[in-house]
């Protein structure tokens, strides 16, 4: 659910990073946080366990610049990846404007990726969204690891609709901003389209 404020001249949108446990969702946000100018970001909040696993969500508000005199602000959220936190994942998808699926490229995580993708589709449907319609991009993370599966294999398993996809090494920052730019572009385009139809 985007929020357009004519008074403060702001367009606010909500983006959610989804994916299996330890795929690098929080790492994406941490990199964005460190590379964003202080005046363009708020505080990053991580509701995590003592072992630094995401318990509820991470939250990072960033500002991307102006369009037609309106400041564009994006609220970035991650979900907890571990399977048993499904109830929490559903809550975080509420009011989402765009989704980034972070896949773990390691071949041994293929099953976990597929399971998480199916879980995303189901949970979105419960909120009344279709994964085929909502702004959606995929990031293949951990490309630097020796056990990384070939891109073709990941694409075959995770990206049948051929949505925009990016290779990444989030820990080093590779691909992180490409992914973010792609989803923000899709979200703004969708907003424009949606408003034209009304």
């Amino acid at each position, binding site marked *: *659910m*985007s929020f*357009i*404020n004519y008074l403060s001249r702001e367009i606010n949108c*909500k983006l959610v990073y989804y994916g299996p446990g330890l795929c690098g969702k929080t790492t994406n946000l941490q990199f964005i946080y460190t590379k964003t100018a202080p005046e363009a970001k708020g505080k990053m909040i991580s509701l995590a366990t003592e072992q630094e696993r995401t318990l509820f969500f991470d939250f990072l508000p960033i500002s991307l610049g102006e*369009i037609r005199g309106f400041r564009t602000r994006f609220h970035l959220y991650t979900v907890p990846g571990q399977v048993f936190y499904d109830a929490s994942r*559903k809550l975080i998808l*509420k009011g989402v404007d765009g989704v980034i699926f972070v896949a773990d490229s390691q071949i041994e995580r293929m099953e976990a990726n597929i399971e998480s993708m199916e879980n995303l589709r189901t949970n979105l449907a419960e909120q009344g969204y279709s994964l085929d319609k909502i702004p959606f991009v995929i990031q293949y993370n951990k490309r630097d690891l020796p056990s990384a599966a070939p891109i073709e294999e990941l694409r075959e398993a995770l990206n049948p609709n051929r949505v925009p996809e990016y290779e990444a090494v989030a820990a080093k920052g590779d691909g992180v901003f490409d992914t973010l730019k792609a989803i923000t572009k899709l979200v703004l385009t969708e*907003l424009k389209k949606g408003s034209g139809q009304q």
Partner: protein
Amino acid sequence: MNPQMVMYEEEFNQIQAVVERLVKEANAKVVFIVAKNGQLIAAAGDTENLDTTSLASLTAGNIAATGGMARLLRENEFATQYHEGEKANIHIQLVGNRVILVVIFDARSSLGLVRLRVRRASDELNTIFEALLNKVQSPDRNDVLTEITDADIDNLFND
């Protein structure tokens, strides 16, 4: 597909007036209003040294989690929450299942007073947000989004 929240000057002024009056009448430190997805809509009181963006997001997370618990217990919603600290207390009220009204107060006020004032403010806010929703859905509204071009969106990333 996505219900949009839009804020215009007229409604914002009405909302801000309610929020500012609530600060005074409830002897509160801070009052703010958050959309259910975590976006801050309005705030009043001593907000200068307060990270209202973070508070807004956490409040919405809190309401979402409580709503999830409610559904498991076959309740519709738990519309009110109260957290008591040593110095600060926080009262959270779901208004019309649409927005969240948050009141932060200290020993200068009391839970009873806050609850009483929140009740009246909730009714007023409900009316305002209902009118706002009707306005947003009306076909002849002036919409900045329709004027955005693809080039505008591309330009956002050219720097």
